[in-house]
Structures are given as structure tokens and as C-alpha cells.
């Protein structure tokens, strides 16, 4: 397999509601990514688009709709959708387009415009539940997260205070992100005292719905060496799917993340992830999810992630910085774009270009992970310089 590099990245601000259409947002992110690589659309052989359910935008076949803004017209273009994992799976798709030898340069664009869906974008998620055995009970999306969070807390004896530290950290980190929607200085008490939505989930445990786009340019080794002296290499990729019978699994541990991570570690030749990964951007649409995913990524023992957080290990200047971007909790959660934002963050961090968010110690290797659907899809990408 050929080596594949990320050579450019771009994103829009993540906002509650953007004036721009999805195509306009996609164009802005795509254009910024190309500019940052010193490339134009003429250099692009193929385009990968990532976007979550069509129902958010109320547009059928969103990939085709977004294709012009993503530079995909009159090119080999495809859209992928694997739930919340889409934003990390899209660059994996870009990777195999190039590693196969079929293309030299691929533009990867992820967009989400959740504000179009009324009265609340959650409505677009209701069909995730089984139409016969679950939907008649009137479920809403918060149920599954609250139910999973409770199981995780109960099995390990974890408190809401310990989990709230993640929201505090990420929202603070996001204050240094120029595109962040919800960066703010909060206390654990603020999180605990925010409105209860579905116990144990309070409002500040959850990331906001957002509009936004992100993009990266990926290319083969010979192109990367020509266009940049700071290529960031794809060292490992992994993805995995668990059963949609989500009530038949023990939700305290995300097996689908572990299997995706093992695939990526094997490819990267990583034996001891905790020592060999310098920065992590795990998927954090809820604060407990960051902890849950750190455990699934084998970066700590099961049930140990809250202690790492309390000890400051996961702070930006800690031994293992986690979500230095501010994550979905702070930067915002336009589903597919949020996952790719994490890949952009690792790219900028490894190149030493993350500005105020830069983690100390010139990190060599970073990991981004996203998860989706009924807590069942895992996608992992490892980048290194």
C-alpha cells in the first residue's frame, strides 16, 4: 500500500445557525483546505464527502447536493455516512482511495447544517430506533445516552462530578479555538446545576447542535513531498460495527471502539498506545463519552479515565492531552464536520500550527476517533509526522 499524507486542512466557524447554505459552508472549508496546501481544484483527482442524515438538511441525496461546494462535480465523487463516525471515516475513505494507487490527490469535505430541521434536529434521529419494538414506546435520542452513561457510572462507581470535569476542560480549551461555538469558563457546579434533561444527563453534559464544515486534502507520497515540507502521514486506520440490538450489549464498554483501535494500532505498529500516542481527539458529544472512548481506545484501563481527568493528565499541558481543540462539547457538533474537525486539529497540532491551542513538547503522533448510530460504529485514524 502506498503512503498517504494529509497536506492541508480548513474549516468554518461552528455556529448555532449559519447564514450560509450547506453548499456554501462546504465550499469555504474546501477552499481553505486547498489554499493551505497551495493547491487548486485542478490538482484534485477525487472527492470524498461526509454528511449525516439527509433529514437534517431536508435535502434528498445530500452528497450530490453538496458536490459542487465540495469540488466534486465532474469528478469521481462519493459520499459516506456512518452516523456520528462519518467525520473520521471520510478521511479513512480518502486514505484507501490513495493507498490503493487509484488516485494521487483527494479532497475530503464534511458538512452538517442541523439548524434547518424544526422544531429540533433530534426529530431527524427518531427513526434510529426499531420501528416495531422500540418506537411505539416514544423514545428520544437522549434516552440511549442517558441509559449508557448510567450503565458506565454504575459498573465503575463513577460520579457525575468526575464526568463533569470533562465538560469543564473541553469548554475551556474551546475558548482558544477561533471557530468555537461554546467556549467558556465553567465550574463543575455549573455543569451539575444546569437543567436536567434525562438523568444522568444535564444540559452542560451535552454538545450543542451546530452548522459547519471542515475539509482536508490528502495525497500520495510523491505529491506530498512536492507540495509541502511538513506532511502529516496517515499511520493507521480502523473501523468497526457492532450490532443494532443495542439492548443486547453491555453498554458500560465500547467494544466497537476497541476493535477499530486495534486495527489502527496494528497498522501503525503501535504496541503500547498509552506511550506511543501523544495527543487524542476522542469523540465527545457527551462528556462521559470522552472517558468511555479513552477506555475503548486502550489508553487507560476500564473505569480509569475519570482518574486521568481528575489528575490533569488529559489537560492540554498534561501527559496525554485529550481534546485540545475543545472537542464537540466546546467547538460544537455539526456531526460529520465535528469528526473531521478532530482530524484537522491533530494535523495542526502535529505541524505546530495550533496557535494558542498548541500542546507543548512537539507531539509526534495523534489519534482522532468518532462513533455513531446506536453506540455501534467506531472509526479511528492515527496521524504522525
Amino acid at each position, binding site marked *: 500500500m502506498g503512503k498517504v499524507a494529509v497536506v492541508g486542512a480548513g474549516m468554518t466557524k461552528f455556529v448555532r445557525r*449559519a447564514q450560509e447554505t450547506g453548499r456554501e*459552508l462546504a465550499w469555504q472549508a474546501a477552499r481553505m483546505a486547498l489554499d493551505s496546501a497551495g493547491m487548486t481544484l485542478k490538482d484534485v483527482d477525487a472527492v470524498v464527502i461526509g454528511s449525516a442524515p439527509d433529514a437534517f438538511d431536508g435535502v434528498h441525496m445530500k452528497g450530490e447536493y453538496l458536490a459542487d461546494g465540495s469540488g466534486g462535480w465532474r469528478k469521481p465523487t462519493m459520499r459516506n455516512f456512518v452516523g456520528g463516525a462519518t467525520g473520521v471515516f471520510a478521511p479513512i475513505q480518502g486514505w484507501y482511495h490513495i493507498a490503493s494507487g487509484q488516485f494521487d490527490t483527494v479532497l475530503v469535505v464534511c458538512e452538517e447544517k442541523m439548524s434547518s430541521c424544526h422544531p429540533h434536529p433530534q426529530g431527524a434521529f427518531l427513526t434510529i430506533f426499531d420501528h*416495531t*419494538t422500540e418506537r411505539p414506546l416514544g423514545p428520544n435520542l*437522549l434516552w440511549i445516552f*442517558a441509559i449508557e452513561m448510567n450503565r458506565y457510572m454504575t459498573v465503575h462507581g463513577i460520579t457525575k462530578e468526575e464526568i463533569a470535569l470533562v465538560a469543564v476542560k473541553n469548554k475551556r480549551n474551546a475558548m482558544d479555538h477561533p471557530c468555537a461555538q461554546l467556549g467558556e469558563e465553567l465550574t463543575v457546579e455549573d455543569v451539575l446545576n444546569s437543567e*436536567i434533561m*434525562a438523568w444522568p444527563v444535564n444540559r452542560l453534559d451535552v454538545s450543542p447542535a451546530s452548522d459547519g464544515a471542515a475539509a482536508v486534502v490528502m495525497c500520495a507520497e510523491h505529491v506530498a513531498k512536492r507540495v509541502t515540507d511538513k506532511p502529516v502521514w496517515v499511520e493507521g486506520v480502523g473501523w468497526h460495527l457492532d450490532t443494532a440490538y443495542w439492548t*443486547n450489549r453491555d453498554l458500560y464498554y465500547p467494544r466497537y471502539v476497541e476493535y477499530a483501535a486495534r486495527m489502527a494500532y496494528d497498522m501503525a505498529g503501535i504496541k503500547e498506545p498509552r506511550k506511543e500516542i501523544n495527543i487524542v481527539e476522542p469523540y465527545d458529544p457527551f462528556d462521559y463519552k470522552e472517558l468511555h472512548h479513552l477506555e475503548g481506545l486502550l489508553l487507560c484501563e476500564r473505569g480509569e479515565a475519570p482518574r486521568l481527568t481528575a489528575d490533569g493528565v488529559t489537560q492540554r499541558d498534561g501527559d496525554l492531552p485529550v481534546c485540545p481543540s475543545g472537542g464537540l462539547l466546546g467547538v460544537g457538533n455539526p456531526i460529520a464536520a465535528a469528526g473531521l474537525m478532530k482530524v484537522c486539529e491533530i494535523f495542526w497540532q502535529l505541524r505546530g500550527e495550533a496557535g494558542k491551542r498548541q500542546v507543548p513538547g512537539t507531539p509526534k503522533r495523534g489519534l482522532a476517533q468518532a462513533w455513531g448510530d446506536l453506540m455501534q460504529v467506531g472509526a479511528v485514524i492515527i496521524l504522525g509526522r
Partner: protein
Amino acid sequence: MTVRIKEWPGTALSSKDFETGRVLTVHHKPKAEYRWDAGVAIGRYLRELKEGRLIARRCNACGRILLPPRMFCEECFVPTSEWVFVKDTGTVNTFSICHVRWDMVRLKDPQLPAVINVDGASPGMGILHLLGEVRPEDVRVGMRVQAVWKSPEEREGAITDIKYWKPI
């Protein structure tokens, strides 16, 4: 490159922009209706619910008793083998106390969704349902519960033929 970018694209709109008519939008209300077939396995499951019973499928290859029932075992990838009645008692595996509807409207009385591991099915074979006849603050993981059924005349062959599960 990112540190050199001073102006990031994307224009945030505020409620005021809408109130003052600064933004133009188009509204569309889709009308989509579906009639889902219950299928072979869930069709029988619903018929038994109408009778006030819970039924599962056994896979003789792995020995698991699968609930909800399915006609094929997704792990062994073979047809499942036989119908097995399971009990209408079980244990709360995990739960939530939900105060909002999907559109974020607050509920007067919270809902108590739970994963219930049903007695007679293989360990960990839970189903999603609701708890009732219990104060929210008294619900515990590990709590033993029993299904509370609608009356035979009210039952229609639906998961809601069980009204909720109450502590025993």
C-alpha cells in the same frame, strides 16, 4: 497555516436577525407515511404479546436465547432453531429519568426508560421498555421488575401491550 488565518468563514445568525426580517427562509412540511411489516420473527413476537406472553428464539449453534427474537443468528449466521417462551419478569440493567420530549419540551412527569434483562433469555439479552409504579428516585440498577399488561381486550399486538414494568 491555521495560525495565519485571521478571518474564519461562517456567519452566525441570531434570533434578532430573524425577528427583524434580515434573513429569508423557506418552510416545507414533508408528509411521509410508512407502513412497516413486522417481519417473520417480530410478527410472532407481537402475536404473543397480544396473548400476554413474551417469546424468544433459541439458536442451537451458540445456545443463546435471543430476545427480541430473530429468524437468523447474527453471530453464527445460521437459521435460529426454535421458539422459546421467556418470563415476564426481569432485572433493570440500566435506566434514565427523562424530563424532556424529543423536541425538548419539558414533561410534567418524567419517563423512566430502562433496559430490562428478561428472565429466561440469555444473560444480557435486554429489551427497551418503561418503568412504572415506582418513584424515580427509588429506581436502581439490579432492581427486579415484572411486566404490567394491558387487559386482554385492550391488547393489540404491540410492544405497548405491556404498559410498563413495576418493581417486585
